[in-house]
């Protein structure tokens, strides 16, 4: 058995989701090769080679793979697939974009967002917004799988010495091209890996009041997240959204402020270790999952909390 693992990276370093996927790969068993695909991504190879347990790092560095355009990346992976029993990627928006395309090119299914490895062909995954957990067995010769980062501890980043191989073949389908990218800039930790998260909902009222949470987050060294309602209302950009259709998070501490706890939101945060809810409605469903609930007006409680820290 050999596993091809498609790394998530930013052209400079591996993202933590890659290391979580390495853990899942280790549980499956077999040789692990890491594929670094992108444009200007060669620098990542050196850090990838240090990940213990990796046999080989494959590097596909070409303008055709800039921003991991799905059509080209899927074509590349298809060409490599025959050497492998499993193809894994983190369930990031990149992985979700190109992995099903890889699966269909190989005429196999995809198992999405696994949260545990039961055996080399059997996995658990959430369905119905996490209200049910399915155990599914893959019947395909090559198993194409995306991995939920928060369900696996990140593997060690240092200590290994894998070989690095540069791939010369280039897949350029010419089907799509990048026009522009608008990336959020923030000095705060990333939502999916943050130890502490402060999340706000519609109850924050407006954009200016939502900024209260920034100050609280800075005191806690926390990331800031939001409900879909808060994103839709324009309080914060889309990359803040936590939930069934946004990001899945599992911090040590999650503080939900002025949000009701809809099932779609809970789907993205109910595996947090400690959940705090601040809501003025004592019947809000968020209190059913909160370890510590505070029934209060957030406009009084948040400044008070900030001062008490």
């Amino acid at each position, binding site marked *: 058995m050999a596993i091809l693992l498609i790394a998530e990276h930013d052209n400079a370093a591996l993202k933590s989701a890659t290391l979580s996927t390495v853990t899942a790969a280790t549980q499956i068993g077999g040789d692990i090769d890491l594929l670094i695909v992108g444009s200007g991504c060669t620098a990542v190879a050196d850090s990838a080679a240090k990940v213990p347990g990796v046999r080989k790092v494959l590097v596909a560095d070409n303008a055709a793979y800039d921003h991991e355009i799905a059509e080209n990346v899927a074509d590349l992976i298809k060409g490599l697939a025959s050497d492998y029993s499993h193809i894994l990627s983190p369930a990031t928006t990149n992985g979700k974009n190109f992995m099903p395309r890889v699966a269909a090119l190989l005429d196999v299914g995809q198992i999405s967002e696994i949260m545990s490895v039961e055996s080399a062909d059997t996995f658990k995954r959430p369905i119905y917004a996490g209200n049910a957990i399915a155990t599914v067995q893959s019947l395909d010769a090559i198993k194409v799988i995306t991995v939920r980062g928060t369900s696996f501890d990140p593997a060690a980043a240092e200590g290994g010495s894998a070989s690095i191989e540069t791939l010369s073949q280039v897949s350029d389908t010419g089907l799509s091209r990048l026009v522009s990218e608008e990336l959020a800039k923030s000095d705060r930790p990333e939502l999916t890996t943050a130890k502490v998260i402060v999340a706000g909902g519609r109850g924050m009222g407006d954009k200016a009041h939502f900024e209260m949470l920034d100050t609280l987050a800075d005191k806690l060294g926390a990331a800031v997240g939001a409900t879909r309602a808060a*994103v839709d209302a324009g309080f914060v950009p889309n990359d803040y959204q936590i939930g069934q259709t946004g990001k899945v998070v599992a911090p040590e501490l999650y503080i939900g402020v002025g949000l009701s706890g809809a099932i779609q939101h809970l789907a993205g945060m109910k595996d947090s270790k400690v959940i705090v809810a601040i809501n003025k409605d004592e019947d809000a469903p968020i209190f059913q999952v909160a370890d510590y609930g505070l029934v209060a007006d957030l406009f009084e409680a948040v400044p008070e909390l900030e001062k008490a820290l």
Partner: protein
Amino acid sequence: MKVLVTVKRVIDYNVKVRVKSDNTDVDLKNVKMAVNPFCEIAVEQAVRLKEAGKASEVIVVSMGPQNAQEQLRTALAMGADRAILVQSDDVLESLSVAKILAKIVEEEQPGLVIMGKQSIDTDNNQTGQMLAALTGMSQGTFISGLEVSDTEAQVVREIDGGLQTLAVKLPAVLTVDLRLNEPRYASLPNIMKAKKKPLETKSPADYGVEIKANTRLLKVEPPAERQAGIKVANVAELVEKLKNEAKVI
């Protein structure tokens, strides 16, 4: 340009699903069913393209049991022109759905296929990407913005780090995110009109697609329940608990 849209019949998003006591599946008996919310947004977008004069015809397709007709009628009432139901009581996994859709694409030759980014039941998020692969089309996934010209579509994609704009060549498969538009409610006259619009029923065999299982479902369990927590009286108590009991700050 024809636009093909898919709608899936799923549990209503307000309903909290229950797992059967024998752990074989979820219990969908007497549960309210609806159009998958993402598919509703896909239909709305297709109808808007027609209203803007960019699409000539909107064809809506569903695969599933006979009563998926209800969801097709909803789409027709929103403004789609005709419907195709590929009727099957088998479990249709994403790859099989994509294979059937690929045959329909071959027959209808749409300029755009617009689908939901994921079904809220199985949360796979893969059928659109698979269809794009099988037909060799370009793909624009998780989109919250769309502009269509004669040869390409400019799509704004919601990605982990923010937003990305791509130009994808036509024909293309697009999968839509929640913020693309706000779907309309069908008016009563339009619901009546929709009853007379053509709805064709087919089977997977009509398209020569053999339904194959790529996975076997071994078990369905409820998720681990969280221990009930406590209410704190004030901020001071909250801080004290977080420091001394939970030890997280």
